């Protein structure tokens, strides 16, 4: 009788171990699958957005063309320059980019995106100088998309980097974004 009881205990122990291992594996699996769908680096459409934004014509006519990309360069090289309307080039370009981001990405608690962060920096071989930093909303959770665009100028590896980080709301995922875009177009059609 004692032997039977011992065998039963062993079997119960074995089943328990199998169940525990199974649960651990399932947790790992869930994390693995979830991770793949919630972060998107080097997003192609964000790059396109940044490239198109660079061509945007502002109201600031100065020495360079009034396009954002040229004004950012002018702000970096001669930050004291002024537009035709007397405003500082750097202030004007900062305000234009801010307005574009506000108008292009709808952020908020119940929106698809919770926040965004944008940085434009100039790099040489040894230094990095941040020209524009814009942040809005909440950018803290791990669900995001980001894209970076490099513009080369000068011969010795000098480049400007335009980086945009978009933070999804907690309840959003990349799938829900695709779904929303689908709905948006459906509505338009």
């Amino acid at each position, binding site marked *: 009788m004692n032997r039977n009881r011992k065998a039963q205990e062993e079997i*119960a122990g074995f089943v328990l171990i199998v169940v525990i291992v199974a649960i651990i*594996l399932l947790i790992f*699996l869930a994390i693995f699958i979830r991770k*793949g769908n919630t972060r998107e680096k080097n997003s192609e459409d964000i790059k396109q957005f940044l*490239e198109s934004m660079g061509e*945007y014509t502002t109201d600031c006519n100065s020495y360079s063309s009034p396009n954002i990309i040229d004004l950012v360069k002018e702000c970096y090289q001669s930050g004291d320059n002024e537009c035709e309307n007397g405003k500082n080039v750097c202030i004007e370009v900062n305000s234009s980019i801010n307005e574009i981001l506000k108008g292009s990405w709808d952020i908020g608690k119940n929106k698809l995106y919770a926040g965004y962060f944008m940085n434009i920096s100039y790099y040489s071989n040894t230094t990095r100088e941040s020209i524009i930093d814009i942040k809005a909303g909440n950018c803290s959770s791990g669900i995001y998309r980001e894209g970076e665009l490099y513009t080369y100028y000068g011969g010795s590896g000098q480049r400007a980097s335009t980086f945009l980080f978009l933070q999804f709301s907690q309840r959003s995922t990349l799938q829900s974004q695709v779904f929303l875009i689908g709905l948006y*177009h459906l509505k338009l059609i």
Partner: protein
Amino acid sequence: MSSRGQLKIQEMAFVLLAIMLFFGIVALIYFALVMNDLREQGKIQSENEANALVKRMISIPEFSWTKQCSTCIDHDKILALKYVELYNKTKEEFWNLDYLAIEQIYPKKAGGECMNGNYPNCNITTVISKKINYGKTSFAYVALCRWNNDKNQNICELARIVVSSKDVKDE
């Protein structure tokens, strides 16, 4: 004796349960990995097709602005294209598209669909719009450029080109 037999049956049942559970989990992990990989591949394939289609549309002479700007398209040309009757009859077949439109993103304007009467104070220029069986829509951000008489200069605004083709299927 019968109690021992019962124990053996119980033992076998537990072992069978454990084996099934084990193989079930292995199969689950395998299929999850395969499905994840397939989904990724499908997504990449679908994105590539959509991107290629949109890039092709941006670069065609009917849309392009200048060679120096790869994301710029000419709003004047697109509006003109909308009204070319000969094109209107054949362009669906020519481009094999169900839907083709340019949507203004920034700055937002008061007008809706772009027409000769309200241009350029409008938000959407629909070039092709078949009303049935749309394929998957895909889009690309573009700079929508035109000549501005008041400012006497070219100006570019932020927009996106939205394309739908039956050839580009959902993943």
